[in-house]
């Protein structure tokens, strides 16, 4: 039996000079599964993803990638297993879309780092998957926020990872692009790719996640199916008052609405 792509076990992390600490926190992502990671600002979503991607070295605990301890793997080996997309990516120079996606092949390249025909085929496939092929010759600065985010996702897919770790991937997008991106992730999950997505959008997390991890003050407060986690009592205990939960009219999944007395009365 193939080991699950990602298992984070009792991981902790403390930023130098700070009091705040992540964890101990644990979670797993199975192949073909989408895990939504939610929680208020400062709850540790980004730090947890960074620790899982070995972008930060955890203070204690383990990250297992396909059953192997990530601490014993090189950064390139980790990147062949995990595709990590940080929250805010600001390229210093203006790269062409095709080249950005091709940069994702880095963990697989050898020698002088030129692409082989097989690498080119992977890049082309990722451009098609993310529907970015139409503007592959354009420069990043000419793209909208949503288009740019899809290009960066294509670049991460070009790493051919077993699991994606995406930090607020839809924060710069309008509703249409948000839904399209989550739809794409859903399709990829259908093909066996695992994904952990940190997001503030509770409704997208509810609609597209198989499981939800709710973080609070650096710890995993709750974990379970969206219906088990997105409940008014649980969310109010974490986010505070001012929200209501109603079922989606089609899927029945819980949707979260802002609410306070008198809202909409004027």
């Amino acid at each position: 039996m193939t080991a699950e792509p990602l298992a984070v076990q009792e991981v902790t992390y403390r930023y130098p000079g700070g009091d705040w600490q992540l964890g101990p926190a644990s979670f797993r992502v199975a192949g073909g599964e989408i895990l939504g990671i939610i929680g208020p600002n400062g709850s540790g979503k980004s730090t947890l993803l960074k620790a899982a991607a070995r972008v930060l070295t955890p203070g204690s605990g383990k990250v297992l990638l396909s059953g192997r301890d990530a601490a014993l793997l090189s950064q390139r080996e980790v990147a062949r297993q995990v595709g990590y997309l940080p929250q805010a990516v600001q390229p210093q120079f203006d790269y062409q879309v095709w080249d950005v996606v091709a940069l994702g092949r880095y963990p697989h390249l050898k020698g002088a780092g030129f692409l082989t025909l097989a690498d080119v085929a992977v890049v082309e496939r990722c451009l098609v998957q993310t529907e970015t092929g139409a503007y592959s010759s354009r420069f990043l600065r000419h793209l909208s926020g949503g288009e740019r985010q899809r290009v960066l996702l294509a670049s991460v897919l070009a790493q051919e990872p077993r699991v994606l770790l995406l930090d607020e991937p839809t924060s710069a997008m309008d509703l249409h692009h948000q839904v399209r991106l989550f739809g794409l992730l859903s399709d990829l999950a259908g093909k066996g790719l695992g994904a952990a997505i940190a997001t503030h959008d509770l409704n997208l997390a509810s609609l597209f996640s198989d499981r939800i991890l709710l973080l609070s003050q650096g710890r995993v407060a709750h974990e379970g199916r969206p219906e088990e986690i997105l409940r008014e009592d649980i969310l109010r205990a974490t986010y505070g008052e001012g929200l209501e939960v109603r079922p989606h009219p089609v899927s029945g999944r819980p949707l979260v609405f802002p609410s306070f007395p008198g809202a909409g009365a004027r």
Partner: protein
Amino acid sequence: MLTRRRYGLIVGGYALLAAAVCLVAPFFGSERLSLSEVWTGLTLGRTTVDADIFLLQRLPRVVLAFLVGGALAATGGALQVVLRNALAEPFILGIAGSGALGAVVAISIPGLYLSAGPFSTVQVLSLAGCLASMAVIYRLATGPMGLSMNSVLLAGVTINVLCGAAVLLVRYLVNPQLLVIMDRWMMGGLDVVGFGETAALLPLLLPGLALLFRQAGALNHLAFGEEMAAGRGVDVSRVQKEVFIGAGLSTAAAVSLAGPIGFVGLILPHAVRRLSGVDYRLVLPASFLSGGSFLVLCDLLARTVVAPTEMPVGIVTAMIGGPVFFHILLKGRR
């Protein structure tokens, strides 16, 4: 997409240009050399004045200019990425200031100025100053998360300011006659005889450049930020460390012999990125080749425009490079 063929064409183009500049430049100067006289002297073993000037004066100077210009431009290009600062240049590491302090100390303290063959204590103390500033910055900028590039930048600027003040103090105290020598050093110069001095730099310059060029591919990823680079499999901390040490060694080698020649390390990488694209596997070699060619050309102008005397090459680099870069900027906007 950067294929082997495209890489070969572009880098080959820069290399051809560099070769042409380096072959032609030695024939021009305060006296124009005759190709046939030089050829006769070099191939038939007959002593000719032109061949001697070519071999002992002009060629060593061109080689030094090429290596210094190339090292400064490649270093500037790499630092602009790891420091994520378009204004980064080799001297931002505090090396100009500390090298200058070493040089003015050697010039000003009676009995400290010694020379043996092509070497002098000016170079040795300047080099010592450069390496000392590297060590101080490395110590100051190393924290629990590795080398902080932000701290490197701040420590480098601070060292430059401190050394600048110390240089002013020395200048205030010394015999005014020595100020001219100090000023000439500060303006940068490539006046060497023979290959001895240049060869003495190679043990620092070559490992320095090798460390920089090794990281060319990784620099493409660092241009997307440290987190993205780490996520793509780059060992960010090691890359930053190697670039810092490589940049420090290359710059120390260049400054100790040629003085702080400005502009090349700042502007050439920008020009190369605009002309040949932003892929750092191209940018570093192209910056090295074009930076070298540029400094050879500037030095050629420095020693011909006001012949039989010479201008400090640092003045020429800024006066030629500034307008050329404005042109490239305007061309890029259209």
